[in-house]
């Protein structure tokens, strides 16, 4: 009976821990296997502890090159999608123009469309245009599908913004540029940041659309997929673990900053 009662009382905590475990277990495996020293070409069975891969993260031919391409594409796609998406979001919320309703729904299509269909049609488009497949076609494709996420995030923020705040700024001697920089942008910033982070994550690990439109360019996800057929170097786990750690550190840092700010205020 005591066990049952204990279980009842802690049910929420147990469920939470189990879910968390379910979410994090793959990351744990990735991390553990980044310290493995596999016998054959595949890193699927634990052999023995080794720091070899961590000492030479770029020891595998072409891997760091593909990583660098992926990072570059992600950065540019994030910038492109965030700038364009923010402008679209403002236009959709602030202005009444013809076809506004149509644009409003069309912007969400890329989110709903199966990625593989979009990938194939993009390839058709690029081939018909005679475009050289590679870095720039990937970038264009990434900006396109990231756009809808940025628009969604920023739009929600702008819609909840009181238009009187900008009027107040204009009333207090801020010209149009000052009003935008000092009031509009800071208030919309959380939405813009959310859109940008989503864009970066989506672009960095996109495989399907990239694979169709990459030509001979190889991004990091494509490299991992390719090597999974021939043999998986431990360095892939090293990169994966490092990315995970960077993300965790960023989240922790932002939490610490917010906490400290709240404490100063209170």
């Amino acid at each position, binding site marked *: 009976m005591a066990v049952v009662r204990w279980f009842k009382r802690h049910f929420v905590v147990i469920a939470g821990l189990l879910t968390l475990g379910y979410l994090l277990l793959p990351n744990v495996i990735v991390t553990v296997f980044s310290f493995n020293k596999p016998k054959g070409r595949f890193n699927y069975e634990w052999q023995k502890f080794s720091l070899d891969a961590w000492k030479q993260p770029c020891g595998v031919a072409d891997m760091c090159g593909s990583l660098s391409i992926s990072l570059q594409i992600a950065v540019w796609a994030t910038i492109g999608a965030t700038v364009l998406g923010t402008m679209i979001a403002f236009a959709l919320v602030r202005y009444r123009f013809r076809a506004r309703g149509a644009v409003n729904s069309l912007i969400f299509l890329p989110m709903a469309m199966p990625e593989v269909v979009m990938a194939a049609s993009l390839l058709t488009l690029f081939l018909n245009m005679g475009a050289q497949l590679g870095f720039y076609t990937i970038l264009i494709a990434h900006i396109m599908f990231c756009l809808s996420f940025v628009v969604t995030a920023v739009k929600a923020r702008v819609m909840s913004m*009181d238009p*009187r*705040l900008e*009027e*107040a*700024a*204009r*009333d*207090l*001697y*801020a*010209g149009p540029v*000052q009003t935008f920089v*000092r*009031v509009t942008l*800071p*208030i919309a*910033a959380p939405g813009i940041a959310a859109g940008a982070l989503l864009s970066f994550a989506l672009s960095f690990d996109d495989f399907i659309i990239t694979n169709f439109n990459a030509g001979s360019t190889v991004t990091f996800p494509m490299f991992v997929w390719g090597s999974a057929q021939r043999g998986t170097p431990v360095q892939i786990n090293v990169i994966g673990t490092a990315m995970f750690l960077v993300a965790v550190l960023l989240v922790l840092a932002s939490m610490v900053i917010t906490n400290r700010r709240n404490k*100063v*205020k209170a």
Partner: protein
Amino acid sequence: MNTKDTSGDVRLSGISKTYDNGFTAVQPLDLTVPQGSFFALLGASGCGKTTTLRMIAGLEEPSSGTVHLGDQEVTNLPPYKRPVNTVFQSYALFPHLDIFENVAFGLRRRGIKSVKQQVVDMLDLVQLGEQARKKPHQLSGGQQQRVAVARALINHPKVLLLDEPLGALDLKLRRQMQLELKRIQTEVGITFVHVTHDQEEAMTMADTVAVMNAGRVEQLGSPSDLYENPNTTFVANFLGTSNLIEAEVDSKSGDDIVLKAGGGKLVLPEARCSAPTTTGGKVLVGVRPEKITLTPADDAGEIPAGRNRITGKIADSSFIGVSTQYVIDSPVCPEFEVYAQNIDRDSRLRPGADVVLHWNPAHTFGLDAAQDIDAGVDTEEEAA
């Protein structure tokens, strides 16, 4: 040279606003607000008072007419180039800036470098020195309201515009802020233009009140003038309560007009009648409920001569402390309202009792009978 400073005058000439959808919010309007006065634009929602205010601020472009501040025409100046600041409805404080930076905003935008002392002084004036580093959402409604006032006043505008500044506060705080704003206005001597739908607020604070209705100024004057001498049924009903009776002009005697209403006669000073009077024509006779005395019908003989009288029956009475409010059913008006001070309460004044209502003819006012007798009744929003 005029000795009076006119740099803070607001002059609106023929100003009007018609929106793209064809709705005319403000009909061509002429208005002068003298330097240093506390001016209220009073009206129900949708009467054009806020639009008028926004045209002075530059947030709304007039469809016609001009706006002058002192000798300067500002009609085509954007809001950030006008020496005018606004306290917005629900304050519009910048949520991402702390109180200090909110108040410093206007100074910084004008490129003033050393803002600290000014901001500290201003926050002290509104008793918020301690809260300087808090964000707006951490303050109470009344505190936010004071920040909004400080943020505008620190710029020493020629005119301060207030758009329903107390609308979001509860009654007690509103009373307190009314006095506070009045004190600040007297202290800084800046022209205040205050928009409100609350007649009591307008009368408490303003030197001059303009009552607006359907995009027009119905009447402009001091609060007591508007209350005692309304020129239209809207003003009579919107500001406080009025008893209006339809009457026929019978004759004139000296400065007075003698009117027939029901079976009796009423006297109205000609100077207090805003309508044309021709013998046999109709006018609306008005009298405020607190000017009327009730006497039981049995004592009718004791009523001094020369007073206007009406007979009726008490339909309802409600005791509200300082006064008792009676509703009288009378042949000339089915719901005549009378407010009596509770000094000597006559126990005979109970529902069902026959009474004589009488008042000094000097408290009677006359209005054009062609108007809607109920204008302004439904739109009135009681403050207390």
